[in-house]
C-alpha cells in the first residue's frame, strides 16, 4: 500500500541545510496498524506528513498503491487527503465556531457527496457523541474534542488514518479511552493506521512499531501480516 524508497526531506538553503529525513525506506501493507516512535526531532512527524500528502519529499520515491504521489499535482494530492486519508492531530485542530456536526461534515463539503448531514451524524454516534452533536469545541472536554476529530477523520471512509500524537494533550485515562475507540473503529473497518507517538502505552495498540532517530529508521518490528493479493485489487481504485 505504502512504499517509501530513499525518501529524504531537507529544509532551508545550502548554507543552513537541516535534514529531517535522511533516506527512509519503508513499506506498509493493507490493514496494518503501525506506530512510529522516537524522540522529538527524529523525523517521525515528517514521515507522517509526507505519507499524508501534507509535505513532499526532497528526494526519493513515495508510492501509494503503486502510484508515485510525491510528485503529483497539488489538485490530486488534495483529493487524496479528502477521500483516502483521515487525519487526527494532537491539538484536535477543530474550527472554533463550528458545531461538532459541522466539523465532521467539513471533509464531505469538499467532496460534494450526498446525505452529508446524515453521514456526519452517524459518524458522531459511532464515536459515542450522540448527545454532543450541536456542541462547539469550547463546550466539549478534551477527550470529546478528540473523538469529534476521529469522527471527522473516519467520515469519508478513508483507507488510511494518520494520527499524530492523538493522546498527547489528554490525561492517561482519557487517552486510553480514545485509543481504545480509535483501535476498535479502524479494526472494524479494516483501515490502515499510522500512529506517531512517544508513549509506549499508546504504541502498544499497534501490531508493528518503527523506531526512528535523527531522520532514519533504527528499529522495525516488522510486518505482522502479509498484504497478499488484496493490494492488487484495491490499486485499481486509486484516484488519478
Amino acid at each position, binding site marked *: 500500500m505504502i512504499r517509501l524508497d530513499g525518501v529524504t526531506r531537507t529544509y532551508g538553503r545550502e548554507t543552513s541545510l537541516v535534514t529531517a529525513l535522511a533516506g527512509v525506506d519503508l513499506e506498509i501493507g493493507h490493514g496494518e496498524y503501525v506506530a512510529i516512535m522516537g524522540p522529538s526531532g527524529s523525523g517521525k512527524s515528517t514521515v507522517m506528513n509526507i505519507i*499524508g500528502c*501534507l509535505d513532499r519529499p526532497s528526494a526519493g520515491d513515495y508510492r501509494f498503491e503503486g502510484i508515485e504521489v510525491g510528485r503529483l499535482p497539488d489538485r490530486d494530492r488534495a*483529493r487524496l487527503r479528502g477521500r483516502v486519508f483521515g*487525519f487526527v492531530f494532537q491539538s484536535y485542530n477543530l*474550527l472554533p465556531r463550528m458545531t461538532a456536526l459541522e466539523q465532521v461534515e467539513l471533509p464531505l463539503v*469538499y467532496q460534494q457527496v450526498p446525505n452529508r448531514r446524515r453521514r456526519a451524524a452517524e459518524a458522531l454516534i459511532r464515536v459515542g457523541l450522540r448527545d454532543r452533536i450541536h456542541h462547539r469545541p469550547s463546550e466539549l472536554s478534551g477527550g470529546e474534542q478528540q473523538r469529534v476529530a476521529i469522527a471527522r477523520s473516519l467520515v469519508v471512509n478513508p483507507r488510511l488514518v494518520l494520527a499524530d500524537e492523538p493522546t498527547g494533550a489528554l490525561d492517561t485515562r482519557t487517552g486510553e479511552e480514545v485509543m481504545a475507540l480509535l483501535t476498535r473503529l479502524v479494526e472494524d473497518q479494516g483501515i490502515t493506521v499510522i500512529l506517531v507517538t512517544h508513549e509506549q502505552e499508546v504504541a502498544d495498540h499497534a501490531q508493528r512499531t518503527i523506531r526512528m532517530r535523527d531522520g532514519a529508521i533504527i528499529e522495525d518490528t516488522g510486518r505482522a501480516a502479509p498484504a497478499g493479493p488484496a493490494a492488487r485489487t484495491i490499486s485499481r481504485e486509486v484516484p488519478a
Partner: protein
Amino acid sequence: MSILDAAAIALRAIGGNRLRSGLTALGLIIGVSSVIVLIAVGQGTQKGITDQIQGLGTDLVFIEPGTSTDTATGTQGGPGSANTLVLSDVDAIAAAGVPGVTDLAGELTLEAQLVAGAENVGATIVGTTAEWPFVRDAAVASGAFFSSTDVTESELTIVLGATAASELFGEADPIGESVRISLAGGRVTFEFTVVGVMLARGGADGSEFDAQAYVPVTSLLSRLQFLRGSGGDVPVSQITVKTTPGTDQELTKQLISDVLLFKHGVAEADFTIQSQDDLISAASSVSNTLSLLLGSIAGISLVVGGIGVMNIMLVSVTERTREIGIRRAVGAQASDIVKQFVTEALLLCTAGGVVGIVLGVGISIGLGGREVGGQEMTTVVQLWSIVLAFAVAAGVGLVSGIYPAVRATSVDPIAALRNE
C-alpha cells in the same frame, strides 16, 4: 465545493465578526451612497436650469444686439452693448415670412420704481408690443394686455405682473388706477393707467415675470428721448421669436439672420441669435461637468472603501492561517480556498452596495425640495448612477478578495496546523 457552500462559509465568517464586517462595509456604504447622492444633486441642478430656460416659453429664438467696439481702445463690449437692433427689424422679420415663425416681439427693458399712492416697488419695465403675451405664452388675470393701437398711438397704458400688482394695490382691483414710473431717484416720473394684470406664473422661473410691468415701447420712448437711437428708429434690447413646435430652429435662425444682415446692410452679423436649445445645451455642458466632478469625488471614496475591504481580508487571511490549514488537510482544493475568500469579500461588498443604494436613494429623495443655503434643492436619482455604483462596489469586492485569497492558498498546511 458548491457556490452555496462557499456562501454559507462566507456568511458565517462575516457574521462571526459583526463589528469588523460592519465597519468594513461602512466604507463602501458611504462610497456608494455618496456617488448616488452627488450625481442626483448634479443632475437635479441641471434639471433646474433646463426647467428655468424652458420656463421662458417654448420653441423660442432670441435675438440680441451685437457687441459695441470702442473706437479709441478697441475694447469690445458684451452682447447687447450696441444699439444695433431696432423695432423695425421686428417688422422686417415678420414681413419676410420666415417659415415656422408664428409671433415675435421686441423688448426694451429698464429698471425703475413703480409708485401707486404710498406704495413703492422696484420692477423691470418692459417696453414691448401687443404680440408679447402670445410670444411668451402669458395670460392676463384681469383687464387686457395693451392693444396694437396703444402702441401706434403711444398710449400711456401699463399692464402689471401679478407680484407687482399685489405689492402696489394689495387686494384692491388696480384696473383704471394710475401708476407712476419713477426713474433716477424720482427726478423723472411718468403717469400710466393700469389696463391689465397678468396671471401669476409662480415657481422659481415664473417669479421673474411676475415682478415685471409692461408698457407700449413707443410710449416709453416718447417720454425718454435719450433712449432713442440714431435715425429716429426705436432700439430694442431683445427680439423674441416664437416658432411652431417641431420647427427646424437652425434653419429659422439662418433665415432670420439673412433678413437682418440684408436689412442692416452688413456682411458680418451685428447681433446674436440663440435658440432655446442652444441655451439649454450650453447650460447642460456646465452642469454635466459639475456632475462628473461630484461623481469623481464620490468615486474616490468608493475606491478608499475598497482598499479598506482588501486590508481587512488580508488581516483575516493571516488570522485564519490555522483554519486554512485544517481545511486543506481535510481535502479542500486551493480553488476552494480562493472561492471562500473571494465569496466573503464579494458578499461584504454587495451587502455594502445594497445598503449604500438604499441610503443614497433615501438621502436624495429627502434632500429634494429642501432649502439648502436659501435655494431649493432639486435632486434627480439616476438609474445609471445606481448601476454604476453597485457594479464598482462588486468589482472592488472581487479585486480586493482575489489577492488575499491567493495569499491564503500559499499557506503551508503543516505550519498552519502546528500554529497553536
